[in-house]
């Protein structure tokens, strides 16, 4: 375990000594801010209209603002997370530092978990930044806390899944840019995969495609529902990603 933490710490450090961490956190904060302001002005407009109509039900800020905002945050993650993971293995392979790790008394899994943990920590910091504008909503309004927390849980799980895919792809190449682009493409595929099926038809294939979609599983979290099946989906996604990364690292060893 201490080895895992050592690697995680080193990864996190390397994000912060290079511009990556600042660029990624900065981009994330700016984009989140844009979505926040636009949805805030939307809800202000809607509630102003509602206020003019007598007897209309009050606007639910969770439903009309926070939920779409979480959805948009997922889209930002789609772009930003490949930038975090693309270098993890690719850079070490290119610079040869991977030999230090491979010849040290560490297991492959310790290295993978360390890198995963490092990236997840940076991602958690990104999400942490969004808590600042969120807290204003609680200061000036009265949103429900539970759906916000479950939404954050969903985002964390989705982000960790993205990171595990990113690690897998980074472990298979020496080129950071290639790793980043393939990761983005694969994540996008998982995002839109349910579009391939026709949900109205209810056929098995469209059910399977809908099950594979990272987006469909996220929806309940943003509504405030923590469903075990969604938890299982994300946790198996992460486990499979890390397991395949271990396989990939091993096969790269064999191939030299």
């Amino acid at each position: 375990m201490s080895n895992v933490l050592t690697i995680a710490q080193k990864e996190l450090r390397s994000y912060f000594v290079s511009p990556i961490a600042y660029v990624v956190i900065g981009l994330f904060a700016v984009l989140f801010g844009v979505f926040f302001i636009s949805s805030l002005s939307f809800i202000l407009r809607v509630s102003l209209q509602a206020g003019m109509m007598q007897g209309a039900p009050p606007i639910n800020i969770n439903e009309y603002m926070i939920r779409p905002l979480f959805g948009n945050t997922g889209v930002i993650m789609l772009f930003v997370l490949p930038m975090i993971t693309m270098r993890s293995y690719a850079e070490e392979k290119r610079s040869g530092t991977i030999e230090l790790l491979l010849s040290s008394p560490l297991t492959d899994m310790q290295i993978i978990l360390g890198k995963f943990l490092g990236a997840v920590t940076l991602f958690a910091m990104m999400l942490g930044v969004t808590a600042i504008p969120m807290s204003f909503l609680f200061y000036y309004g009265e949103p429900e806390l539970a759906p916000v927390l479950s939404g954050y849980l969903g985002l964390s799980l989705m982000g960790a899944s993205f990171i595990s895919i990113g690690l897998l792809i980074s472990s298979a190449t020496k080129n950071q840019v290639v790793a980043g682009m393939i990761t983005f493409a694969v994540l996008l595929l998982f995002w839109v995969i349910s579009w391939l099926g026709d949900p109205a038809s209810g056929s098995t294939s469209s059910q399977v495609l809908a099950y594979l979609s990272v987006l469909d599983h996220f929806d309940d979290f943003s509504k405030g529902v923590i469903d075990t099946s969604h938890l299982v989906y994300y946790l198996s996604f992460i486990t499979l990603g890390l397991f395949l990364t271990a396989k990939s690292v091993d096969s790269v060893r064999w191939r030299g």
Partner: protein
Amino acid sequence: MVEDGIPTNNTRRKDSLVIEVQHITKRYGPLIAVNDISFRVESGQILGFLGPNGAGKTTTMRILTGCIPPTDGRAIVAGFDVFEQPVEAKRRIGYLPETPPLYPDMSVREYLTFAARISGVKSSERAAKIDVAIDRTSVGDVADRHCGKLSKGYRQRVGLAQAVLHNPEVLILDEPTAGLDPKQIIETRELIRSLAGDHTIILSTHILPEVSQTCEKVVIIDKGHVVAVDTPDNLTSRLGGSETIRLEVDTGGVDPIPVLQGVDGVTTVTSSEEHHGVRVLETQSAKGADVRREVANAIVTRGWGLLELRSVKMSLEDIFLELTTQDTVDPPGNAETDTASPSESVSAHEHEAREAVHE
């Protein structure tokens, strides 16, 4: 002799065989990088791994350090099979790859701290061991500089500091002097020699004098095969099939070759150059036969000037060429050929001196 010089350290193994490579083969698809290599290294020895570029040196070293698995065969380092018990084996190995594996954005001290942590150095001993490694490799001047900003020589040394940090039984150094300037090369060789005894060292190189100056045992590999395993001295005498004498004779224009050919015991005479009547010649005679007196006599009795006469040992260059090329190459017999033996005896003296200190 060297084995006795090992300090009594409780982590140190007492038996003398530290590295055992058994029939290692590595294939990359149809390409065979290393083909059925076997050799052994005893405790405290410096083994030179010699071969032309692309012979399989780096592949063998990466297999030994557990970075890549072999297609076939076994490697046992410090009593542990590198692939059955990789973590135990790797704890006892220090590895300096061809390009020192430095993180450019870490300072030297941070880097060594990281290396110490992942190689399992206890936190209580960490600072002290890092200081020792910094001291041994003399990188103290740059300890707070970023690794990415170091010169090639310092990078190499920081890499070496990383390798010796956890005081491993076995050090595996891939071309430790590559890219250094001559002064740094000498310093690095001295450093490596000073590490022997405490550590068993395998170093690879394609620079021949390095082997004759630093190593007690040489493994020559070519195209993935081991072509010779021996001490530099034994290789020189074993493979030198004949005794060579180098002569410089002032004959005043007369051709000395028939005369020398007539000397008892001389098999062939070759003339390499001539200027102002001075001939440079080489005579070959059967192995073990010393014909120096007879040759000198033949020259002097004719009234020629004998300007130089010395027996030439076959250099590692010659052996290397002979072993790694198909067609036999005539020994070039240049003036530097016999540097191997004096430096060998120097290193032997050093070992004796160190041994005395330890006891």
